[in-house]
Each structure stands twice: as structure tokens, then as C-alpha cells.
């Protein structure tokens, strides 16, 4: 079966696109899928660091596009998961080094060999973003429960609709249940209310994400971490499995849980 090509985009920077790509890739590969992730952020390379593969880079995506190496040579295999590969961005070039048709051609060559191709979009809605979505079958928009991030996500969803990239799916990242409870943060419902798209996952705020990113071992490897669990669940949903959403509000008492179960909070 040819690969599903999924791009992760957000509009706003710093909401967790790269972290999501790394963790979803790990989650999918742990379940036995053959995955390649592509860093689409030419000039601001990050994905390699999060995956802990930066010192293995010899060739990058621009080398492939400009014919200095074969595609296989630029694909870096993960240390732990033999079915997970990454194609790094170029650090010394800019977005103009790649065009939408370059991306489409590159992805076409990968489709037959993988189950999933994940593309990490740069922030913004300009050329780099357009390149990253050009080849996608599906675009997942990631946002934080913050007004500015949600507005940018709304803009991105609008562009996806205009470019007929199908209905987007949404990941809400870094949700802090206790802040939501005190009405100091937008709730998942507030965000969905505004964006009106399918929700594919909610990832709780967790220090472990930062720690593991710095170590180059995505949090999805950690069986106990709740953010890791959330990403692994999203990966399963991408494969078409029906996984229930995590109960993020573990601070709530029994009565509140009961109320939620019976329908209304």
C-alpha cells in the first residue's frame, strides 16, 4: 500500500510542530509502521536534534533536490527503531532552495517504500509552508490553547480549505488541566468551538517533553509519560484505530469525574 503523506503545520512558531512530528514518527514506528519524516524547515533545521540524529547528517534534502546525492543517502536511520528514517533540512540554505514541485517529486519517490511520510512544516504561511503542504494527502494543524496560536491555526485551516487540501485535523498541544479549571487557559472545547475541525488528539503540558527533546529521545519512547502516551494514541488514530481520549484532568475529584462521565461538567 502506498504511503500516507501527512504534513504538520501551525502558522505560529513554537507550538510543537517538530516535537509532534518526532513523537508521531516514533509512535508509528513502535507499532511496526515504516516511517520517514522530512524536515521542511530549510535553514532552521531542528527535527534531527529532537530525534538525536544530528551528528549523523551527511547529506540533506537540498542535496537530494539539486542532485548531489541519491535519496537513500540522505535518509538517516533511527538509532533504536530500524523502521524509522529522517531526511534532514539544509541548515545553510533558505526556503527558496526548494519548490513545491521539488517536494512533490521527492515524496513521490518515497511513497512506494513507506507506510507514512511525515513532513514538518516551518512556521508562517509563506513559501516554506506552501512547499510542505504541496505533497500532503492530509494536513494536521497543531495549536496551543492560547488565543494567538488559535488565531494562526484558524488562518492555516482557511488556507487549507482554499487550496482544497481536505478537512484538516487538529492537535491541541500543551494543555494544562489545572489552568483550564481555574479559567486561566482556553479549554479544548473553547478551541474546537472556534476552529470547528476534527480533533485528533490533546497533549497535556509536561516537563518530560522538554527534557526528552534536549536528550534527543522523543517522549513517546517513555511508557509512563502522559504526553508520550497522548502522542502514541494520536499515532494509532492515524493508523485508523479507535483510541479513546486520555482523561487529562486527574486532579478532579470523584464527583467531578462522575459528572463528566454522565455528560456534563
Amino acid at each position, binding site marked *: 500500500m502506498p504511503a500516507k503523506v501527512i504534513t504538520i503545520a501551525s502558522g505560529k512558531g513554537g507550538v510543537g510542530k517538530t516535537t509532534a512530528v518526532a513523537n508521531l514518527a516514533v509512535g508509528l514506528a513502535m507499532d511496526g509502521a515504516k516511517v520517514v519524516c522530512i524536515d521542511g524547515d530549510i535553514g532552521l533545521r531542528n527535527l534531527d536534534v529532537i530525534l538525536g540524529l544530528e551528528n549523523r547528517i551527511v547529506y540533506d534534502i537540498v542535496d537530494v533536490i539539486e542532485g548531489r546525492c541519491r535519496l537513500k543517502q540522505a535518509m538517516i536511520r533511527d538509532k533504536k527503531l530500524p523502521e524509522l528514517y529522517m531526511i534532514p533540512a539544509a541548515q545553510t540554505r*533558505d526556503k*527558496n*532552495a526548494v*519548490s*513545491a*514541485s*521539488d517536494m512533490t517529486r521527492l515524496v513521490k519517490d518515497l511513497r512506494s517504500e513507506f507506510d507514512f511520510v511525515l513532513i514538518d512544516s516551518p512556521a508562517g*504561511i509563506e*513559501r516554506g509552508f506552501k512547499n510542505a503542504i*504541496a505533497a500532503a494527502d492530509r494536513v494536521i494543524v497543531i495549536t496551543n490553547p492560547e*488565543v494567538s496560536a488559535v*488565531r*494562526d491555526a*484558524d*488562518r492555516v*485551516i*482557511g*488556507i487549507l*480549505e*482554499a*487550496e482544497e487540501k481536505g478537512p484538516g485535523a487538529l492537535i491541541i498541544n500543551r494543555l494544562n488541566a489545572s489552568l483550564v479549571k481555574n479559567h486561566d487557559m482556553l479549554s479544548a472545547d473553547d478551541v474546537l468551538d*472556534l476552529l*470547528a475541525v476534527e480533533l485528533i488528539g490533546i497533549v497535556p503540558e509536561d516537563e518530560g517533553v522538554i527534557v526528552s527533546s534536549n536528550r534527543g529521545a522523543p517522549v513517546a519512547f517513555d511508557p509512563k509519560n502522559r504526553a508520550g502516551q497522548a502522542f502514541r494514541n494520536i499515532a494509532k488514530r492515524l493508523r485508523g484505530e479507535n483510541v479513546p481520549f486520555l482523561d487529562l484532568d486527574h486532579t478532579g475529584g470523584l464527583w467531578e469525574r462522575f459528572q463528566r462521565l454522565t455528560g456534563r461538567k
Partner: protein
Amino acid sequence: MNEMNSLIQIKGLRDGLLVSLDDAPWEEQRVALLAQVDDQISFFQGARLALDVASQVLRVNDLVELRDQLSERGIFLWAVVSESPTTEKTAQLLGLATRISKPRPEEGRQFSVEDLGEETALFLHRTIRSGTRIEFSGHVVVLGDVNPGAEIIAEGNVIIWGRLRGMVHAGVKGNRNAVICALDLSPTQLRIAEEVSEVLSARENPKPEVARINKDGNLQAEAWSTG
């Protein structure tokens, strides 16, 4: 300016620069263009450039070379217009636009209607998202939400069957009798004719409301009453 530069014409467009070349040998023109760019680098830097190459026949290598050279100078080549089908095909292969008048889809729309009567309305059945600008010379009816960052500009009235959280300007040509209605009126800003609303905060229990210019000439919102 030296003689070579006369081969090249540069015009400003709404969203960048248009450089027109003629049928002189490509190599000569490429060198001349780059010379001109280097001459006025501060003017060109960061520009979006469209290139009209008349009937030049260009191959992938030609355009890639130029694109890279422009890119090194901080110029983004986004379109190549040509009378030659070969060149057009080359440009398309490189993901460049081949027409420059094409409106970009996400950038709002201006609807116009021939022979507009009093009662003409634009009906939109969807969420109007951030970054979308709807302009219409009659009334606008939206069945759906208008999100923050979206704008609706109408010469007539604006009716939102949904939540209004963006910006609406009704009666834009000066019609002070225009009204704005919404099921939940929590806009970023409202305007009717020249009046601009005070900030309306989000309501606890939203009720349908209508905003209009009252007797004192202020823009005000009041609960919808069937009376």
C-alpha cells in the same frame, strides 16, 4: 545606466516587481539583470519578482540558475511569464507561477454583481476564518461563524446566523441605516458607515443582538426583540 540595462524594464506590481526582458540573447539579459540588481541591491532585497521573458525559450537549467542567483541576493522569483510554451512548461516544472494576474485564493474576495438591486445579498454557508476578507456591494448573510481576524465589508446590512467574533463594517458607502445582526455579537470591532463601535465584550449567555446607529448618532447593540 549603461546600455545593457535598457534591455530590462522594471515595474512595481501590487505584490512585488515585474521585470520585463526582450528577445535579446538570454545570457546577455541574465547578466544585465543581475548587474542591475547588484547595482541597487537595497531596492531589490527581499522583493517578490515576476519575470516576463517575452518569447525566450528557456530550459530548466536556465531558470534554476537564475532563481538561485536571485535567491542568493535575497530575491524571491515566483513567476515567469512567457509566450513560449516550452518556457511555460519549464516554469511550471519548477513550481513557478506562469500568470501574474491570478488572484491568490486565501486573500479575501471581492464580489461584484452586475445591475445591483436594493435587495441583493451574498449568502455564505461556511465558517469565515481569520485572514479572510469578504467585500460585497449589497447585503451579506453568513450561516456560520465569523472568527477573529476575519473581515466582512458590505454596502448594505450584515446578518450572521452564528457567532460574530471578527470585524464587520456595514453600510461602508455611508448608509447610516445599515444594521449588523448576530446570534452572538462578540466582535473584535463593528463599524456602520463612519461610526466605530466601543469594544463589546464576550457575553456570558449570548442572545441574538442587533447593532445600529441610534438617535444620538452612536453605534449601539441591543437585544433582538420580536416586538
